[in-house]
């Protein structure tokens, strides 16, 4: 029961008690007053009557007439005239009249019926006594009216008091509500600092203590995040140029190659410094290092407006840039310009006998990392110094026609391949759904075959909607918890948020859906993703981040803001991040994520050794071809 209710109940009891007591006291004194009045009136009347009766000079019939006149006024229950020998000379008794006073009310009190008496004389001689018993009806009615009036005024008082009490309590308890909200936020790893400190002493202390605690927790989280980023930098940064190193290049290229989305096609630009190893010996490290630094800043400047491009120094002689979602045509001009400027830099450096080669290499999801690196090496040896290789792009190879794509992505052409995510006991916690399409010949197309086109035609959102509809309707999926990948455009579209909310409302309440977005895409739409994740959590569904890596110059606070249900992290990357330099385990990333109650799923698990190492480091969930390949339903 809430504090508000408790206080209200206690105050109500208290108020009722006070009002009831006041009423009881008031009623008691009214009853006493009525009792006294009854007697006084009776006594006054009997005195007057006895004086009048004296005028009858002992004539009983005259006295009876006088008594009748008085009795018929209706204020008396009984008038009796008795002689000196206690014999009744005349008597009138009133039968009980109906009064508007209910019986239950009369039972609340007893009024003693007073008997007033006075001596009746005739001249010097007393001839008897007259006795009057007044009727109680008037007292009853007066008391009852009084009671009703009291009741009315007390009802009014109670109403006013409760209204005031309600507003007063709300005012006092509003600060408590803020504290409660803060406490709830802490338990869900949100760090709210309560800036409006309440003036009530106790609440003030609690609020200040909570603020202090929140600040401390926030501090710890931020330190942990910094150490994770430092470690990431150590693993993936080239010391000389502060660009990414070969590890980083491989990580990112692998990520792009494994992508199911629009990143499936791109260009790698590689700058090769020919003769630099020899120059190192003849000219000395410093001059060569200066040249490499100036070239790296040249390249970095070239891509500063392209936030998707990834730059890395892959070995002592090469710097590569990956341009995802780009055609060679887009890069050609930039490459030529870069080559010219790099040659100028080389000439300025006065390092002799060196040359620069620039290689452009196209990649698709069909390529492998090692294959691509081989192709680059081959092109290097085939290219002249200070030259750019020429590439031809095969645009004719489009697997499906653009005209038909819009028709193809409709629900009846969609198929899903499921890949389970397992916990350590081998139980599936959910299955990730990969989209496939049937073409007009009923042959199955892989994501890489149609996603780039879908993206280009801005049909991502439509495809996502159709996939979600399909997943909700498909009979075979009714009893399974599945994870659906959604595109950046879907998350950014507010209408889609509304649509999904309504769509999920129609789903049987036992069904749970996971929705994943890649870390890379997420960083372009953190605000929208926050709303998205809130909506999912409120409706009992889950939100996950796919292909998570620590990004340079990105504060990890977004994790704490979003608190997704899980992060999928590439097994190889995760392995490197949790592996300490001397073989011991570095837990910073794991602690950071798990402190936010986020599950870590090691994805793309293909190597048993890596899996075992991760398991030893405390990773509990795995997904990958080592455990199960995606299978079509």
């Amino acid at each position, binding site marked *: 029961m809430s504090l508000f209710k408790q206080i209200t109940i206690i105050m109500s009891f208290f108020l009722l008690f006070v009002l009831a007591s006041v009423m009881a006291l008031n009623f008691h004194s009214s009853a006493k007053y009525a009792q006294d009045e009854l007697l006084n009136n009776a006594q006054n009347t009997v005195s007057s009557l006895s004086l009048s009766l004296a005028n009858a000079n002992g004539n009983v019939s005259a006295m009876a007439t006088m008594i009748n006149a008085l009795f018929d006024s209706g204020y008396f229950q009984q008038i009796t005239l008795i002689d*000196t020998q206690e014999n009744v000379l005349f008597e009138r008794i009133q039968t009980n009249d109906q009064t508007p006073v209910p019986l239950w009310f009369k039972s609340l009190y007893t009024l003693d019926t007073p008997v007033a008496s006075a*001596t009746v004389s005739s001249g*010097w001689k007393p001839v008897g006594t007259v006795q009057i018993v007044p009727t109680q009806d008037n007292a009853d009615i007066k008391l009852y009216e009084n009671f009703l009036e009291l009741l009315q005024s007390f009802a009014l008082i109670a109403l006013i008091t409760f209204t005031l009490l309600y507003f007063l309590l709300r005012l006092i308890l509003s600060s408590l509500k803020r504290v409660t909200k803060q406490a709830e936020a802490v338990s869900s790893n949100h760090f709210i600092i309560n800036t409006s400190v309440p003036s009530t002493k106790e609440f003030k202390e609690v609020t200040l203590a909570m603020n202090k605690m929140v600040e401390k927790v926030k501090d710890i989280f931020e330190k942990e995040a910094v150490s994770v980023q430092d470690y990431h930098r150590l693993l993936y940064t080239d010391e000389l140029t502060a660009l990414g190193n070969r590890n980083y290049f491989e990580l990112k290229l692998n990520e792009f190659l494994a992508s199911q989305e629009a990143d499936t096609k791109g260009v790698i630009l590689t700058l090769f410094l020919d003769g630099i190893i020899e120059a190192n010996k003849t000219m000395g490290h410093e001059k060569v290092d200066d040249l490499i630094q100036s070239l790296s800043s040249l390249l970095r400047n070239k891509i500063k407006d392209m936030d998707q491009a990834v730059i890395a120094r892959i070995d002592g002689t090469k710097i590569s840039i990956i341009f995802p979602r780009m055609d060679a045509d887009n890069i050609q001009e930039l490459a030529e310009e870069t080559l010219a400027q790099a040659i100028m830099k080389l000439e300025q450096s006065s390092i002799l006998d060196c040359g620069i080669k620039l290689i452009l290499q196209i990649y698709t999801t069909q390529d492998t990392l090692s294959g691509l690196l081989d192709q680059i090496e081959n092109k290097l040896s085939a290219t002249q110094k200070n030259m750019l290789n020429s590439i031809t792009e095969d645009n004719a190879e489009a697997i499906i026609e653009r005209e038909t794509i819009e028709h193809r992505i409709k629900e009846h052409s969609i198929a899903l391949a499921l890949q389970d995510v397992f916990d350590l006991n081998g139980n599936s916690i959910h299955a990730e759904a990969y989209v496939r399409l049937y073409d007009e010949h009923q042959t199955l197309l892989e994501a890489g075959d149609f996603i780039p086109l879908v993206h280009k035609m801005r049909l991502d959102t439509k495809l996502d909607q159709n996939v979600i509809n399909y997943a909700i309707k498909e009979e075979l999926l009714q009893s399974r918890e599945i994870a659906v990948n959604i595109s950046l455009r879907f998350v950014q579209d507010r209408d889609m948020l509304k649509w999904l909310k309504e769509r999920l409302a129609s789903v049987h309440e036992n069904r749970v859906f996971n929705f994943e977005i890649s870390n890379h895409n997420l960083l372009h739409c953190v605000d929208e993703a926050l709303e998205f994740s809130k909506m999912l959590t409120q409706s009992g569904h889950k939100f996950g981040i796919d292909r998570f890596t620590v990004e340079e110059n990105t504060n990890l606070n977004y994790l704490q803001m979003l608190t997704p249900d899980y992060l999928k992290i590439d097994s190889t990357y995760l392995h490197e991040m949790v592996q300490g330099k001397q073989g011991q385990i570095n837990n910073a990333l794991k602690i950071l994520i798990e402190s936010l109650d986020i599950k870590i799923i090691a994805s793309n698990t293909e190597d048993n050794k890596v899996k075992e190492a991760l398991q030893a480091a405390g990773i509990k969930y795995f997904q990958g071809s080592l455990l199960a390949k995606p299978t079509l339903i």
Partner: protein
Amino acid sequence: MPIVKLILILLFSIHTLAFNEGPISEEVMAKAERKYSGLIVSRYLAYNKMLKEAEHISERNKLQMVNSFFNAVPFQSDIKNWKQDDYWATPLEFLARNKGDSEDYVIAKYFALKTLKLDTKKLYFTYVNSEKFKRPHMVLSYFESPGADPFVLDNINEEILSAQDREDLTPIYNFNADTVKTLKNQQSTHKKWEKLIKRVKRNKL
């Protein structure tokens, strides 16, 4: 202080007989001496002496003796005596002041006769009109038997006469102290009488 006073009064009333139960006690006399003067004590002693003498005589003589004893006290109106319109003094006050109005005589005579074991049912306080003085007056009526003509004890005529012989008086209203007494638990039907009784019991002087 009022509580202490009350306790003292209670103790006092336990140890001393109230006026209506017997002769005036020595404590009351000592108290009267402190408040007034020795003269008063002599009047109280005279009263005790009268009671003693009247103890074993006939009812008629008792009436005569008591009537004469109190009629010796000079008359004075309440307004002069008590600075009040109408004050019913206790017999002790009446004797102490040695003056009073018609009610005071009647009250003193009533309590003296009660002390002398006269049946109080025979004694009525009668409001009368004095034709001679043209003013309200009170007398003590003595009914030897119910229905008989009463004898009138008052301070205007020192002689005890039958009511028929008192043409100077017109009776208005009778009350008997016994019937005035409370019925059941209810409060007294005659407030003035009730207050007087309380003062008498406290031996107020």
